[in-house]
């Protein structure tokens, strides 16, 4: 699993077997991968939790693979060893699988960067608008404040440095 968006990009994760025994439990992890052999049949549960976060939502990517790839052929005629061509095909297949894994990783990184950039964009936009408004308010306020120093009281010839 990997956390894509939100806060510090971390999440709690827990994995339980059908009896409720905890197989894997980690708090506040950004990404991890876990392999295990199932000891019995049943429903295994995994749970992601964001309870520790006050108000950020998280998006979590996860995938799981159960067992090996299904064999290409029904195993009735699998008595001879693989020919050279066939074993070449098998190794290309495995290499391509790892290429696809790397692509997934890269795609997740891109999604993560994009969401961070969009969040930054919104924050900068609001900040700039707020700053411009404050600028105007402060400069107009300064003038009227200064004027009010001189309006109410009888003024002596106090020099006003500015």
């Amino acid at each position, binding site marked *: 699993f990997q956390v894509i968006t939100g806060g510090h990009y971390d999440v709690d994760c827990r994995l339980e077997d059908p009896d409720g025994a905890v197989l894997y439990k980690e708090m506040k992890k950004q990404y991890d991968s876990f392999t295990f052999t199932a000891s019995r049949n049943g429903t295994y549960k995994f749970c992601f939790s964001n309870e520790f976060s006050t108000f950020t939502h998280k998006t979590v990517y996860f995938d799981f693979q159960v067992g090996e790839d299904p064999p*290409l052929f029904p195993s009735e005629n699998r008595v001879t060893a693989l020919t050279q061509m066939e074993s070449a095909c098998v190794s290309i297949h495995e290499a391509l699988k790892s290429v*696809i894994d790397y692509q997934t990783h890269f795609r997740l990184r*891109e999604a993560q960067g994009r969401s961070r950039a969009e969040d930054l964009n919104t924050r900068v936009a609001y900040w700039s608008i707020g700053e411009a408004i404050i*600028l105007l308010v402060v400069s107009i306020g300064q003038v009227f404040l200064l004027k009010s120093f001189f309006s109410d009281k009888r003024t002596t010839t106090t020099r006003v440095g500015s």
Partner: protein
Amino acid sequence: VGSERGHRGCRGDGGSGPGPTPCPPRRCPPGNYRTQLWDKQSESFLPSTPGLGMHVEVKDPDGKVVLSRQYGSEGRFTFTSHTPGEHQICLHSNSTRMALFAGGKLRVHLDIQVGEHTNNYPEIAAKDKLTELQLRARQLLDQVEQIQKEQNYQRYREERFRMTSESTNQRVLWWSIAQTIILILTGIWQMRHLKSFFEAKKLV
């Protein structure tokens, strides 16, 4: 995508298993689901839930609704999309009876098929009458096609990113110029206003 008590399971980014996956335009993964309702008396999930309706809604990366249909308690759905990127698949039940409140739970089995590893190769071999080597070559071709599609998607993303960067650059430039002008104008206005004020007060 699980549903408990609130009977609304959402925000599953569509893709292989769950997870954001670029959807090649015009050909999108079929999904199928099955629901089971919790039975308090027997303390287990009933094998099927007749009469429960599930509403499936799919949104494409731009937020446009691509599929919005009502299905029964089990169903298959497919959709086509023309934009690559993260889709959202949302399943929610609209049943008000069926005791889904106060301790009710609904278990949803969801299967979304994407990618070459969901192809059924023995079936393909039988249908097209392929030898073993041809079948292996076909599998490798499918994998390579998937890699190509992903690379296309990354190229599209890079292009979008470049356009966004350039537009941001422009906007920052104009904004800085505008802000400097505002600053200067405000300063000038302040000086003139105060000057005329002091002159009126006969202080200068």
